[in-house]
């Protein structure tokens, strides 16, 4: 028969273990939520530039600069979080649309990120409407290029 002490330590161990698992899942959910929120914030930050592209707002260099700063701020806000941590491929209670290719093709994923950075730095270097309108589509193409490869359709 199990001694009371041994039973207690086993229970405690099981409790710690199950807590640990819960925490790991919660962490995955947190990472997923953080990156989804990050994407939403970025889309919002890009909004004023998208409006100029669509012709809904006039070109305004200051507005472009503010929009680019806002995009940078979304980077700053998450710089301490590993947004695509390997254990965040699947959430416990949150659905993620991240595809397994993010982790099975790390080089492709990295290249997609670099294409984005390059597109943004080219855009930031523009000084007039013609330059802006020529440079913005590369940013969108970088968004789309990554989404197409690494995000599954939401329906």
């Amino acid at each position, binding site marked *: 028969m199990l001694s009371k002490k041994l039973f207690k330590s086993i229970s405690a161990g099981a409790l710690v273990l199950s807590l640990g698992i819960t925490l790991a899942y919660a962490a995955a959910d947190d990472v997923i939520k953080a990156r989804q929120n990050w994407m939403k914030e970025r*889309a919002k930050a*890009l*909004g004023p*530039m*998208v409006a100029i*592209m*669509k012709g809904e707002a006039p070109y305004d260099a200051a507005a472009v600069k503010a929009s680019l700063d806002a995009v940078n701020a979304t980077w700053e806000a998450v710089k301490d979080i590993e947004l695509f941590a390997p254990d965040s491929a699947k959430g416990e209670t949150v659905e993620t*649309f991240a*595809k397994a290719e993010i982790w099975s093709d790390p080089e492709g994923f990295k290249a997609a990120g670099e294409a984005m950075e390059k597109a943004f730095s080219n855009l930031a270097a523009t000084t007039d409407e013609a330059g802006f309108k020529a440079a*913005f*589509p*590369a940013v*969108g*193409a970088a*968004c*789309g*290029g990554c*989404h*197409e490869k690494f*995000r*599954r*359709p*939401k*329906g």
Partner: protein
Amino acid sequence: MSCHKPDPKQAGFDPSLPSGGAPLKTPIGILYPPNLTPDTQTGIGNWSDLEFVNAMQRGISKSGQHLIPAFPYTSYAAMPVGDVLDIKAYLMSLKPVTSPKRDADIPIAFLLRRGLGLWKFLGLNTTPWKPDSSQTVAWNRGSYLVNGPGHCGECHTPRNLIMVRDESRLFAGGPHPEGQGKVPGMRSLLERSRYKDKKDLATALQFGEEFGYENMASGGMRQVQINMSKLPQSDIDAIAEYLISLK
């Protein structure tokens, strides 16, 4: 064209030419769409007009086999033969590429091809597309492009158990044919606040994610949108007018 791209894992092929080979995952197995360039050995270089139309509109290969309906002859069947031959003329104008056919990885392919005759009886509607005189010229143009050559319904209409499109739920969306995620429905786009108006949808179709329409890229739609962006403005507007009218 997008389905007939070369396999990105094989070096030396021009990705802008439809020399075929990129794997297409389907619920029944992996297909390797064939070479559509006018190469006489491995492409369609020595196909007659009749053979081309038979394949495009009835799903019958040059050698007389039933073709698997991942190839959307079920949509192309609605087109006038003249338009189908225009496509052939375009393909024949491309640079020929030697790229041999790769057999499908379908465990029951042999059996399946025999059964396809029966499937076509249920799943292949050969009624040509007809205009609706109560609608505008643009709406009709959009309806033709979406239902015929555009074959939008192949992915945006759900299928039943034997993979026949459920026409009662035309464009209602459904599971993605390659198995990951869902294809969005195209009905009631305004009511569901997917787009502001006809012009907004036309801009999305034309520029996609390059203009920040962030749902225009996933599940293969980016390639479709890039192809669509090459259409004349009037055709893009027509497609938008038709799609917006779907309730």
